[in-house]
């Protein structure tokens, strides 16, 4: 049964999406049960996958066949099957997506209760989760493209869910425009690869790629497209709008969808084209990372609208991960290998942290919007008395994202500071300045929303319903576990993930059988 886990991972949310219209017709209880149980089942399956990939195991699953190749009567074997390949790195990403899906679903039960349109909401929500999980699990580049499209199309609909708001339509249209340009470039890159190698299987291409001119062009296209999709500066323009206008449960999942694109970028740089482009590719990642970090936080500081502010912080946090992975790619193969490995472990740790605390922050922002009916910080104040649970969980998430000790954000950022210093002290300086500005920005949010005298207009505000608190509590628990047991997570999961990324030969041979 356990060998089918990768298939169950995709099947579960997909079945949830197909059953949603029927569940909504059956009534409120059936609807809520399907939303929560299917997302919980996805989370349980993802935990099973993480457990199965511990210790360097690689799960390979071929859809519809025994082997990844299709053997023709002539004896020719074509690598055409739909295939999943999951090692320690993508298992972690899958866990993040599944956790966000579950938390967002719990939150949505109460948050979306007063709206109609549940058939569409639930179907698209599960399809978005399916797309993001597929992006993380697939071992085939064309299927990666298909899953990118599945998650993108679902998210266009969900960003524009409140379609009477012109801002929501504009955000969705902007996101669609950027995504479709990116998708076309991705398709061109895939066409070029298929033309050259007659294959789109990731391991097959990794075994054949030698770093020729076409490989470099394709790699450049991949970097541009996936940097677009993960919201790196200067290709970030869609991100604050889309994050701000989507319902909070959706934004929670959108964070991990953009992380799935980040996963794709890192997988391609490390496992498919390792060493292609020399030091240029790592330095591009480092420069993109520094620019995203600094400009993202600078734009966040001046915002007055809570979800837009958090959207700009997302750009800044993606910058940390890009820089860490760039340092890892630059240093891993050279004399500074130990720093490279630490940078990668720190980057992976930060990726998990970001998925969890940013998702929680968006849920907190959703709770504030639910209770007050506004996202404008200037119209909030004194809410700590009426919303103590939301305030408490917001403080934990804000401390974690700002890198305050002893929270998990501090540990991952410290690993990134240490390793980036070995490459250039300026990188560490930029990262630390960004962290200080992040703290300043979240101190402003906390002061504006929760402290000070209560506003007369908000006198009737009460704490949000239990289901919403439960969604936030699930993510808070995850943050506290990462904070309390960082060594366990690092030694069992993050080091394993970094080793999996560096083990290019292992990634290839898991499918190709010792090429």
């Amino acid at each position, binding site marked *: 049964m356990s060998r089918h886990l990768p298939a169950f991972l995709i099947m579960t949310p997909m079945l949830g999406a197909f059953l949603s*219209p029927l569940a909504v017709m059956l009534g409120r209880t059936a609807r809520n049960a399907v939303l929560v149980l299917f997302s919980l089942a996805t989370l349980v399956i993802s935990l099973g996958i993480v457990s199965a990939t511990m210790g360097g195991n690689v799960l390979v699953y*071929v859809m519809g066949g025994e082997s990844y190749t299709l053997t023709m009567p002539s004896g020719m074997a074509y690598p055409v099957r739909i295939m999943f390949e999951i090692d320690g790195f993508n298992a972690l990403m899958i866990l993040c997506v599944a956790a966000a899906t579950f938390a967002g679903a719990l939150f949505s039960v109460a948050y979306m209760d*007063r709206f109609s*349109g549940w058939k569409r909401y639930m179907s698209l929500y599960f399809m978005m989760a399916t797309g993001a999980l597929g992006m993380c699990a697939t071992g085939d580049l064309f299927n990666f493209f298909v899953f990118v499209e599945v998650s993108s199309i679902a998210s266009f609909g969900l960003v524009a869910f409140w*379609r009477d708001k012109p801002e929501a339509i504009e955000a969705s249209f902007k996101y669609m425009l950027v995504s479709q340009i990116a998708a076309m470039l991705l398709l061109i890159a895939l066409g070029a690869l298929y033309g050259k190698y007659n294959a789109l299987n990731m391991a097959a291409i990794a075994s054949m790629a030698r770093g020729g001119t076409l490989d470099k062009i394709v790699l450049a296209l991949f970097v541009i497209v996936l940097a677009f999709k993960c919201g790196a500066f200067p290709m970030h323009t869609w991100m604050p709008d889309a994050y701000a206008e989507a319902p909070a449960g959706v934004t929670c999942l959108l964070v991990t969808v953009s992380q799935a694109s980040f996963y794709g970028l890192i997988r391609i740089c490390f496992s498919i084209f390792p060493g292609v482009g020399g030091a240029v590719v790592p330095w591009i990642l480092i420069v993109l990372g520094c620019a995203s970090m600094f400009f993202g936080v600078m734009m966040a500081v001046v915002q007055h609208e809570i979800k837009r502010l958090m959207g700009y912080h997302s750009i800044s946090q993606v910058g940390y991960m890009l820089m860490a992975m760039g340092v890892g790619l630059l240093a891993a193969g050279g004399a500074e290998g130990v720093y490279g490995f630490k940078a990668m472990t720190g980057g992976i740790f930060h990726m998990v942290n970001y998925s969890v605390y940013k998702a929680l922050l968006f849920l907190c922002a959703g709770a504030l919007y639910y209770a007050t009916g506004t996202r404008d910080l200037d119209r909030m104040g004194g809410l700590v008395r009426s919303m103590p649970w939301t305030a408490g969980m917001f403080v934990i998430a804000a401390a974690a994202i700002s890198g305050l000790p002893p929270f998990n954000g501090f540990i991952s950022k410290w690993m990134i500071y240490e390793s980036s210093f070995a490459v250039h002290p300026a990188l560490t300086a930029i990262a630390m300045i960004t962290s200080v500005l992040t703290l300043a920005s979240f101190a402003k949010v906390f002061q504006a929303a929760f402290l000070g005298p209560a506003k007369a207009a908000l006198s009737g505000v009460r704490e949000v319903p239990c289901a919403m608190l439960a969604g936030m509590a699930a993510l808070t628990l995850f943050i506290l576990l990462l904070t309390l047991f960082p060594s366990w997570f690092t030694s069992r999961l993050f080091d394993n993930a970094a080793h999996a990324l560096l083990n290019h030969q292992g990634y290839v041979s898991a499918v190709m059988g010792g090429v």
Partner: protein
Amino acid sequence: MRPMSVVVTKVCDIFAWFMVVFGALIINNGHNTPGGGFQGGAVVATFLSFLLAAYGSRRVFAWVRENIFGFMACFGPLSFFVFGCLGFPHSFFFNSIAVPEGGQPISDWLPYAGTISLMDLSVGCGVVGALSMIILLMYKSIHMVETGEGMGGERGHDRFER
């Protein structure tokens, strides 16, 4: 959209059905020839476009029921999922009908292409339903903009009922 001349409606009466038959052929032969559920489904969905163009939106809206297309869009993916599950314990999507364990087909009446053929039918059903819904909704919005009927009176998921 207003109805077109009697020549157009008569031609539509004859040829719109051919599009359905042609689409069904593409769906049914997807495992042998270029085509399959998506392509065939898209061809079948043109049936509704023909009717709308020839007879006008008011008359067609009186004929068709949106719920039928909604049911098809829901039933198609669900049956696709069930056919995919027939592949277990080998793997999801494994063609256990065409390539059974003991080498013998399960039944003579099942298609020789196995689950591929059945999945083509499922995808075709889903695509016909979904594309027809899209076409209907697009015509509805054109009708709404042209006549002003139903504008501003919508109570959908965009209402923040506080």
